[in-house]
Structures are given as structure tokens and as C-alpha cells.
């Protein structure tokens, strides 16, 4: 189990050049979470329109795994319905628990190696848990707005 299993090229690409980094304008959901064991911070904001994630972005400070996972997550959920996004969150969590990758995960399968490094799993799941918290208040397509966020 080498470092290459963990730090796949696509992960390093997202870490070096993250996608959708920043804050969404007119966000309907905005949640920040902290990993108390390491101090990593992730903030995920999004705007739901007509039941779909019309825009999504992340910001924060953390290791390559948490930041790459956040970046890849924004790619994966953008344009998806809230229901589909929840499905992706569940599928990603399954992957982190050593489950077989489901087709909907696409590029995210690159993070499969993280499952072999138990202490790093929380790094990868932090942005997803943050998005999940934001979507928890989403009713009929509207996101739960919690500026300042859950910590």
C-alpha cells in the first residue's frame, strides 16, 4: 500500500488547482464544519433552484485529501437534484467504508485508496458531511441556510 494509492494524480490535480473554490452568490445553503481532531475547516455553499444544485462552491483550510475531495465533490453534485446529491453522498460514504465503487461516482473513485488509510477517511468525508448538513434543511428544493455554520 504505497503513497501512490493515496495521492492519485487526479487528486493532486484537484489539490493544486481546485474547482469551484470560493462562495456562491445568493446561497440557499452555507455550512462550515471543523474536524476537531486535526483542525481542518471546510465551508460549502450552494444555491438550489427548481430542486437542483444550480451552483456550489467550497472554501477552507485542510490537507490535500480534504481539499481535493471537496473540489471533486463540487464537480460531482453541480446540476444534480437534491435527491441525487444525497445519493452521491451515500455512495461516497460507502466507498470510504471499503465498499465497491458505484458508477455514479465517476472520477471520485480516485479517492478509493483513502479507505485503506483509516485515519484519513475523515479528511475525505468532511466536505461531504458539510454538504449533507446544508442539504438537511432543503425542502422542495430550498437549501437550509445556516450562515456561520455548524461547527
Amino acid at each position, binding site marked *: 500500500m504505497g*503513497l501512490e494509492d493515496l*495521492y492519485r494524480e487526479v487528486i493532486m490535480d484537484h489539490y*493544486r488547482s481546485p474547482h469551484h473554490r470560493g462562495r456562491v452568490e445568493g446561497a440557499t445553503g452555507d455550512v462550515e464544519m471543523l474536524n476537531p481532531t*486535526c*483542525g481542518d475547516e471546510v465551508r460549502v455553499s450552494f444555491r438550489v433552484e427548481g430542486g437542483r444544485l444550480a451552483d456550489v462552491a467550497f472554501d477552507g483550510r485542510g*490537507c490535500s*485529501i480534504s481539499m481535493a475531495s471537496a473540489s471533486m465533490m463540487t464537480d460531482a453534485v453541480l446540476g444534480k437534484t437534491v435527491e441525487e446529491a444525497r445519493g452521491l453522498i451515500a455512495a461516497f460514504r460507502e466507498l470510504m467504508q471499503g465498499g465497491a465503487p458505484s458508477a455514479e461516482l465517476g472520477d471520485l473513485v480516485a479517492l478509493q485508496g483513502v479507505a485503506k*488509510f483509516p485515519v484519513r477517511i475523515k479528511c475525505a468525508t468532511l466536505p461531504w458531511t458539510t454538504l449533507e448538513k446544508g442539504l438537511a434543511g432543503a425542502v422542495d428544493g430550498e437549501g437550509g441556510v445556516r450562515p456561520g455554520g455548524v461547527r
Partner: protein
Amino acid sequence: MDIAKIRADFPILTEQVNGRPVIYLDNAATTQKPRSVLAAVDGYYEHTNANVHRAIHTLGERATAAYEASRARVARFIHAPAPETIVFVRNASEALNLVAYAWGSRLRAGDEIVLTPMEHHSNLIPWQLLCKRSGAVLRFIPLRDDGTLDMERAPIGARTKIVSVTHASNVLGTLTPAAELAARAHAAGAIFMLDAAQSVPHMPVDVQALDCDFLAFSGHKVYGPMGIGVLYGKRALLEEMDPFLGGGEMILEVHLDHATWNDVPWKFEAGTPNVGGAVGLAAALDYLDGLGLPAVAAHERELTEAAVNMLDEIPGVTVYGPRGERGALVSFTVEGIHPHDLSQVLDEESVAVRAGHHCCQPLMRQLGVVATARASFACYNTLEEVEALGAAVRKAQSFFGSVPH
């Protein structure tokens, strides 16, 4: 000191990590245990084990004697005036909590507790909880940019009831002026508590010379087993304090509606204690005294200096804390590489360091980082291991390339 001979005393140092013996540089988190400590714990359970202070039978008497002899051994190690000033607890955190509850119950609204911004959460949270209960307030001795305390601005005054400070910072390595702090506290009519978790393993500590009212340390950071720790307290203070936990052992006479307390230190040791742990701790202190603390300190100073100088010379590496005199550890960050990622690459190279906030989130905020990596040393570490750390850091830099942040 013959380091090869010392290393042979620690079985775990031959443990393989990624195909090579582990290079264990996480000693500030916990040290490894010499064979003599493992044998003492085994020997206790093989030949001595029974409950203490209760049984009128041979094993019970042996166990009680072993437990109380361990207390006397700890007292001698930190130059405490009597074994009765030593309370066995689980760890330094429990010792600090014990004082914050049992001594702290006398605090009232407006009383002040003085700490530093570099305290481990275990010397911060118990006092925050005490403030919530009592209305007392926390004051902090400012930290200068070089990681030393600004004693001229120490807010110790008429309202100060206790000054509780780390002896050696687990992040910066800063050594605090304990004797001066004790004198300042006493002059203000306050008491002084020293969190010695990071100093007792590395330098001679004399509670009477420092004039500590309370002192806390953990057994597992001083080559002893996990789950045993020490609170030293001046006898008069321990005697006037209420108990911390209630239960067996800590009582004298019990009625259905009231009870009276046992003498110190047993008043603070409710329930069956960790006798095997205490015996192991005594063996650890024997081991350390056998090596000689001044020799251990000199060796660790050499390693720490070498590490600081080496890391200072690697471009992109920032070393935190004072230069010169410091504890046996070095915290650092590498530009463009998160400490978690750094630690992961170092582990691949068999080098074990700690990465994270080190239970010092306020200090991380003051340093302007979310986390650091930390290498910390013990008697069995070598200059070759320090060099391996440097090589592994350079490898991490080449693995991650120039990552903008």
C-alpha cells in the same frame, strides 16, 4: 550514554514500519516502554496482584506495599517532602481536573485564574469549566513572537487566586520560568500549579525548589504505562480540599446520609487504583534515574538542536518556538504541504511524527496555522534518526512538488 545499549532496552524499536524499524519521533505524545517496565507490570500481576488497603491476606499486603512503595518512589523522583503528597490519578489531565474541582470550589465571581495562551487543552478546559461554575475569569500571560512569556505583562495581581502554567510547551518547546511564576503567584496571595507533563521526562524537577503548590504529570510520557499519572500537592492544601470523586477507599466512616473522609492522599483515590500502573511507573523512574536525568537531558538537547538547525536550513520549512534553550521537541510546517500530508509521507519513510493542533487550538490561531508537524525526542533517539527526518521532509517536498497555497 550508550544509545545502542539503551535502544536494546526498548523492544518496540525493532518494530517494522513499511519495511524498516520505526523511527519514533512522537515521544511528546507518549514514550515507549523499556523491558524493565514491562517486566515490573507483568511481575506485579504474576506474583503480587490483589486489591490494596482492604485485604487481610498475604497478597493483599504485598500489593499494598508495592503500591505505597511506588508512591514513595514518585515522591523521591520529584523531591516531594513526603509520599502522602503524591496522589495517583490516571494522567496529567485528571490531576488538573482534580485541582480545578476540589481546590477550585472555593472560587467566587470576580476571582482570577492566570494561564498562558500555549496551554494544552487539559490545562485550559478544566479552568474554563470552573469559570462557568464560579463566575471566576481567565487571564493570560501574553506570549511574545519568539514563543517566550512576556512576564512584565503577566496579569498576576490582587484578584489572582491561582496561576497554572505549563513547564514546557508541547508545541513550542518553550520552557517557562516556573520558580519566578511561583514567587509572583505567592506574592499576590495566589497558589501556583505546574503542568509538568512535558518536563518531568526530560529534566530534573524539584517541587520544593520550585515551590509548586500543585504539580501534574503523566506516567506514560515518562516511559511508564498508560493510565497512571501523578498529582503532587502541598499537604496543607490537600488536607483542606474536599474530595474529587466519591467511592470506596476515599472514606473513613460512612453512614447512610453522610460520611467522613480518609486521610490524604487516599481521600482523592476513590475506587480500586491502577496498582500495576503505579508499579510500572516506579520501574520507569528507576530506569530514568539509572540513565541519569542530566545525561538524558544533554543527549536530548543535542538531538533537538540538531533538528532545529537542520529544519531551519531546509528552504520552505518554518520552525516554531524559541531558539536555544527549549524542550525536547520541534514543531514545524513545510510550505505547500499540509502537516497531515507531510506526516503521511514521513510514515512511508518509517518516521513517526505528530501532525495536528496538538490539543492547542488557541496557540495554533496565534501562530496563524491550522496545524503543525512535531518531532519530539527521547533518550533512545539518535542523530541518524534526526537526519532521516530531514531526508524524509525533503522527499515530501519533492513528492508534492511546488504546491501553491
